[in-house]
């Protein structure tokens, strides 16, 4: 799975689950998801479960930090690095 696919997948999931009705173009790759309150703790857990299932990775609790999840771009980088390490 390449970075573009991961970004698309993550964006679709976030729009569908957390921002229903939001226009897709308003959610950019650099939108701050944690800082802006889109990804709260519950949403983070949902997203993690989804990423683990869809991308075949395992995420540890201490990896739930803004550096990994604060934007769609960071999510894609994080998933790719996890895939590379497994």
């Amino acid at each position: 799975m390449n970075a573009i696919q991961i970004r698309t997948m993550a964006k679709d999931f976030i729009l569908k689950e957390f921002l229903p009705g939001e226009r897709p173009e308003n959610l950019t790759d650099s939108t701050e998801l944690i800082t802006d309150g889109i990804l709260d703790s519950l949403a983070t857990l949902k997203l993690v479960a989804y990423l683990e299932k869809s991308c075949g990775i395992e995420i540890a609790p201490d990896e739930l930090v803004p550096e990994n999840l604060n934007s769609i771009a960071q999510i894609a980088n994080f998933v790719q690095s996890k895939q590379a390490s497994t």
Partner: protein
Amino acid sequence: MLGLDVKTLSLPWSADPTETESRSILAWFAITGQLALFIALVYLLRLETTALVRVLLVALAGWCVHYFLPQRYRLPFFVLLSFAAIAAVFVNLGPNWHHWRFEGVIDAAWIVAIGLVLIGIVHLPIAFGWRVLALVGAGCGLAAARMDWIATPWTRAVWPVLASMFMFRLIVYAYEMRRDQKMATVSERLAYFFMLPNVCFPLFPVVDFRTFRSSYYNADRHYIYQTGIQWMFRGAVQLICYRIVYQRFVIDAADVQNQIDLLQFIIWPFLLYLKVSGTFHIITGILHLFGFNLPETHNLYFLSSSFTDFWRRINIYWKDFIMKIVYYPLYFRFRRWGESVALVSATLLAFLATWLLHNYQWFWLRGTWVFTWNDFLFWMILAVLVTINAHYEMRHGRTRRLRGGALSWNGALQTAGRTIGVFVVICLLWSFWSASSIPQWFSVFDTVGVEGPGKTTPALVLVAVAAIIGIPALALARGGGDRQYSFRRSVASVGVCGLIAVCISLPVVHDRLGETVSTAMADIRVPTLNSRDNANLERGYYENLVNVGAFNPELWIVYGQQRHDGWDNLDKTPLSEFTGALPTTYLRPLSQADFKGKRVHINRWGMRDQDYEKIPSPGTLRIAVVGSSHLFGEGVADEETFEGLLERRLNAQAADSGYRHYEVLNFAVGGYVPLDILAILEDRVLAFKPKYIFYVEHSALIPRMLKRLATAIQNGSAYRYDFVRDIVRESGIDPSADREVLQRKLTPYGERLQRAIYSRIVEAAKREGVGVFWIYLPRPDERTSAELEKRLAAEAGFNVLDLSGVYDGYDWRTLLVAPWDDHPNAAGHRLVADKLYEVLQQHQDLFPLNLAVAPQREEQ
């Protein structure tokens, strides 16, 4: 970026090739000016301890230099400033609060030394598990010292400061060290633990180490600095609101008599949390000035639209800490049993950990434990509410929006409605948490259905609360809170508002703006309730931690509030003897001790006075004075009490009055209430054959009297009075009930009890042919009326003398024994003696003395 067209400064050092930051002399001036305004505001309104003013001055001086430093020098410079701040705050710790001493530097050095050892343990070259074990061992050793089981070479002032730096940050730091992260530099570590404003704020936000590092200059630096300034002013506004709530809206459970009181009782405890959020904004604001672009600690928590939202908005750093250390690890461990089980278990356990860690925090800051049912139930009820809410959100989702987005009117109205509901529930829960006992909290609901005396109705209050909470919630949901940042606009608005606030804070300005403004400013400037109110109020978990200095005399000195070591109540000294009946205490005959900085001697009869024969000699006019702490002379020397001054003056100036000698016997005891005074009068005073009795009293004494009566009913000593037996029988109150509940039930009978006590005093005196005077003596900072007490005294048959205005023309702050103690000092006692003499002269028809003309009052 700044919106400022200014020439870049040329600097004396060579430019760092990696540095692309702009420097602007205008921006420097703008931020320095705003910071100076902020310091002036804190100083003029006494918003915090003087320790904060000192730290802010260090920060201001440091910032002026820091701004021009190359980036690589800034963090080490910040560390040096942090150490300088610790020294600046501790430098005046000494045995005498009047003078600056340098012994405090030793304490400051201990803080740094212990801190370095603790940080060193985390970096020992041994397995992580052993390092944790070593930390726990060090913690146990320190805990033993905290409980005074082990003697330490440092004073107790060190504990709250050391604890606030290390009790949580070490946990976060060790957690991060366990992960194989990029090694932090020495400066980063020292800056994290000893960060600049910490020394004057024992209750400090749990800053995350990772965030602390990653936020460092992660945006345009002028934006970071200006955000810090904005947050500091925001904190100041919250502290001002807190003071107003504290002075105007706090109501004791015993005073809750109707529905309006009940609503007030439910709402104020939650509003007092403004003190915590205000100080946290100031703390993070100061850190911004040195490049730490930390996130908000609180975000409009009064406008939470659900319980999970409340948990996310209030004390955000705490929430993040618990999520990181407890919640996520537990959730991941439990999730093999399913999402719901993991969510419910992890949430409940996270709140259990929160409760335990709040107790842990209390222990380190206060040195005691605070296990109470209110506390436990508060956290558990909140846990259940958040868990149910989180489970619902997990199943059904929650409405979120991107920055700048807005909900539909329908959605916004629903959000506003939910916000009002959450606010009401949290208020209820917070008042429960702050109540002194569970039965006391439940007992206030007896007043449901009891109408208040004024025109205000509960419906009106509820509508007002709904509007105050609902309208901003609606605006927020409609996207009203999102604005584009502009440095220039921010500087202009903060600068102008700050300047206006500072101007109004100046006495020379606000005294000309009318009585309302002047009174409001006086309320804001008074940091604490007076001692009477303090004695009556339980103020909740955070109130006791943010004011931790007030409970730690050494730290109080360090913080410039300078509370003296020997500043206990009279009943904690060897001068006092507890009777377990009425009066509650007697003074121990022939005892002497240091009390509130003065040597106090008690005569053979148990009076703070010179020695007298039990029966007055012929030709002597004897006056017995009864009352409490002001008359006793707390904080002044034996020869400085106003009754002693009056006696000397009578003897010096009334030589031709027909009496050879005057004796004024002081039967006052600090802490006495009218019930004690009645008892001592009957049991002791009359046996000394006085010709007159002077009963000296203040205003608003009924609540304290009821508190004492509740105890006296419980131990049976109050039943010596028929009027108490009658009231207990009539009211049907249960003497075995909780003391606070009993006090509340007695409140409607307060006036009747006071009248009965006064009548009995007058009757007892008249039976012995003694003339009785009731003398109203205001406190230096008196703000309540004594009309009720004066009326009751007159109706009972006292001759009423009024010393109102005794302190007129003087700044009452200059007449206090100490900044934290509202008893009059020696100058205050001189004024009282003069005024009393003057009033006695005016009432020679009641008090047949041929007194000489009183001289003009001396200027202070």
